[in-house]
Every structure is written in structure tokens, then in C-alpha cells.
């Protein structure tokens, strides 16, 4: 039961942190909760489908289907978060100022809400499918009683969601002056971290060279399987033993999005 709770917690935590940050960042988007819920449902449904077709996915592309799948899901999420960051860098303040009177913004708000839905859906899809497989494995092998498994799963989910919600509630308390800068930074780091993980999957599939692996090793200082390491991993993409390629992906995505935000801002001012 305890083991189940820990593993489920780990999977749920990552998705919950992503959802917490993205929800806070889009708090003024009209009908946000509706889109959030839709993303959650799509992600859960997708998880079950992905889990059921694990062997098919794994054999796809001569055995590297799983890596490709993960890299694509992460890549899509990075693109969506980049889009969000660039769009928010010009419209975020307006959206907040006219939160009660969003008539003019509603079309733009809609594209933002579909981004929210997709990011949430992708996060749940990736972590959810592993959870489903894990729980299925326990149930199939009978190594734990069903009630123990369910209790463990519930505790793990509850704890993960609690952390995600704490981050969300904490962000909402950030004063308006700093709110956009704070959420923008978090979304940026989230995207960079996902890019680094995507690179790791492509290296594992032998589609990319690792380049200096590991570039550094901080596993003694902050182990990745400790609570703090897990939090850092989900928040900023912390990796105790990253390869050179992962770090390159991380920095490249960071710079690309920052450049995009700057460019959008200066283009916006000219109008």
C-alpha cells in the first residue's frame, strides 16, 4: 500500500504541478475551469487508451515507439507553453484589467483556453498512462490486495493534487505587480524542463547523441528520487545527471521563448 502510494504520488505530482502553474497563469481566461476540466478528462481517457496499447506503441518504429511518443507529447507541450508565454507577454495585463469586461478579448481568450486544455491533457496523458499500467500490474499479479492498492492509489493521488493545489493557491497570493512575471518565469522553466526530458528520450532511442554524459552529477547533493529533487524536477526540470544534449535543449528553448516574448512585446508597442 505504501509503495503504491509513493509511485502514484510521483506520477501525479508532475502533472499536478504543471496544472497548478498553468491554471494560475490563466486565471483570468474566461471559462477557465471548463477548459481545465475538459483537458483533465481528455488526458484521463487518453491515459487508459495509451496504457492499453503499450505493447503496440513500444513496437512502433522498430522498438523506439515509446520514446518517440513521449518526446512528441513533451514537444507539443513545449510548443503550447511557448505560445502561451509569448501571447501572455502582450495580452496578459489587458486580460487582467478587463477581466469583467472581456468582450473584445473573447476570441483571443478562446485560443488561450484551448492551449490550457491541451497542456493539461498532455500532462495527464503522459503521467496517467504510467499510473494506469502500474496499478494494472499490481492488480494482475495480485501482489497486493485490491483494497490496499486502491487506498494507496488514493493517498498518492491526494498528496500529489495537494502539492499542485498549494502551488496554485500560493501563486494566486502573489501581488498583481509581480504575478505575471512570476507565472511567466515558472511557465518558461516548465517548458525548458520538458524540452530537456524530451531530449533524454531521444537519446535513449539513439536518435540524438548524448554529448558529455553526464555533464554534471549532483545526485549526492539533491537526489532525484528524494522529495526535494522530485519537486525541482517537476518545477524547473532538474536532472541530477543531465547529458550535454539535455542542457543544450533546455537553454535553447529558454532563449527561443524569451526572444519570442521580447519580439512580441516590441511589435505590440509599435501598433
Amino acid at each position, binding site marked *: 500500500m505504501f509503495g503504491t502510494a509513493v509511485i502514484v504520488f510521483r506520477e501525479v505530482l508532475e502533472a499536478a504541478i504543471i496544472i497548478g502553474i498553468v491554471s494560475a497563469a490563466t486565471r483570468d481566461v474566461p471559462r477557465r475551469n471548463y477548459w481545465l476540466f475538459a483537458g483533465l478528462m481528455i488526458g484521463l481517457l487518453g491515459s487508459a487508451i495509451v496504457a492499453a496499447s503499450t505493447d503496440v506503441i*513500444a513496437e512502433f518504429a522498430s522498438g523506439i515507439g*515509446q520514446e518517440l511518443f513521449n518526446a512528441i507529447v513533451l514537444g507539443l507541450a513545449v510548443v503550447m507553453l511557448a505560445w502561451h508565454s509569448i501571447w501572455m507577454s502582450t495580452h496578459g495585463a489587458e486580460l487582467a484589467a478587463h477581466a469583467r469586461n472581456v468582450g473584445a478579448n473573447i476570441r483571443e481568450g478562446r485560443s488561450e483556453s484551448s492551449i490550457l486544455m491541451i497542456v493539461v491533457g498532455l500532462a495527464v496523458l503522459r503521467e496517467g498512462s*504510467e499510473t494506469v*499500467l*502500474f496499478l494494472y500490474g499490481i492488480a*494482475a*499479479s495480485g501482489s497486493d490486495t485490491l483494497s490496499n492498492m486502491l487506498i494507496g492509489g488514493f493517498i498518492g493521488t491526494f498528496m500529489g493534487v495537494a502539492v499542485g493545489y498549494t502551488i496554485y493557491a500560493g501563486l494566486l497570493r502573489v501581488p498583481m505587480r509581480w504575478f505575471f512575471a512570476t507565472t511567466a518565469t515558472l511557465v518558461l522553466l516548465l517548458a525548458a524542463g520538458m524540452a530537456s526530458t524530451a531530449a533524454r528520450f531521444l537519446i535513449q532511442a539513439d536518435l540524438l547523441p548524448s554529448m558529455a*554524459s553526464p555533464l554534471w552529477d549532483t545526485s549526492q547533493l539533491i537526489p532525484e528520487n528524494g522529495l526535494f529533487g522530485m519537486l525541482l524536477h517537476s518545477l524547473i526540470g532538474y536532472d541530477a545527471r543531465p547529458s550535454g544534449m539535455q542542457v543544450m535543449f533546455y537553454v535553447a528553448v529558454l532563449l527561443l521563448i524569451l526572444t519570442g516574448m521580447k519580439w512580441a512585446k516590441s511589435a505590440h508597442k509599435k501598433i
Partner: protein
Amino acid sequence: MKFLYAILLLTPLVGFAAEAEFTLVIKDHKFEPAELVVPAGEKVKLLVVNKDASPEEFESYTLNREKVVAGNSTIKIYIGPLKPGRYPFIGEFNQATAQGVIVAK
């Protein structure tokens, strides 16, 4: 001319510059062998064969690898080039029993 033929014949070998291949078998939620020696300093292809009906996740923090292995199926995973040393791995779904170590020499 003979030289050219020789090059042509060798090209596919270069393309597939076959990495050394090693196999780990999962049975009854245990790895066999529990300790696998691989050459250090080169990329290695690892096959993980799951003979159990339930899925498993091959995971190693030291190798920075994770991959799900469905029940009764095989995955391949590329590791290294590794520095000489010991690299523990686990089957995350059955951590209590599924443990092993890759030794790079």
C-alpha cells in the same frame, strides 16, 4: 576496383556499427542476471525481456533511463558510453524484488 568493392561491402557495417548487445530477463519480478557486466567507454544496446504477464518499468537514476516494458514483451534501450563503475537499476513497479546493477568495466 577490388578496393571499391571492399568499401561497398563494408558500408552497411559502418551504417549499423553494431553496438554490443546485452540481455536482461525479467521473471517473477526479478532481473536475470542481477549483475550485468558491459564494456565501459562505448554505447551499448540493452534488451530487456519481460517474461512476466504484468508490465514493468526499467528505471535507473544513475543511467538516466526509464522505459515501460509491457507484459510478455521485449524492449531495447541504448545506454552509455559509461565511465567504469556500478550503475544500479530497478523495476519500478516491483521495487522490492526487481533490482540489479550494470557494471561498466
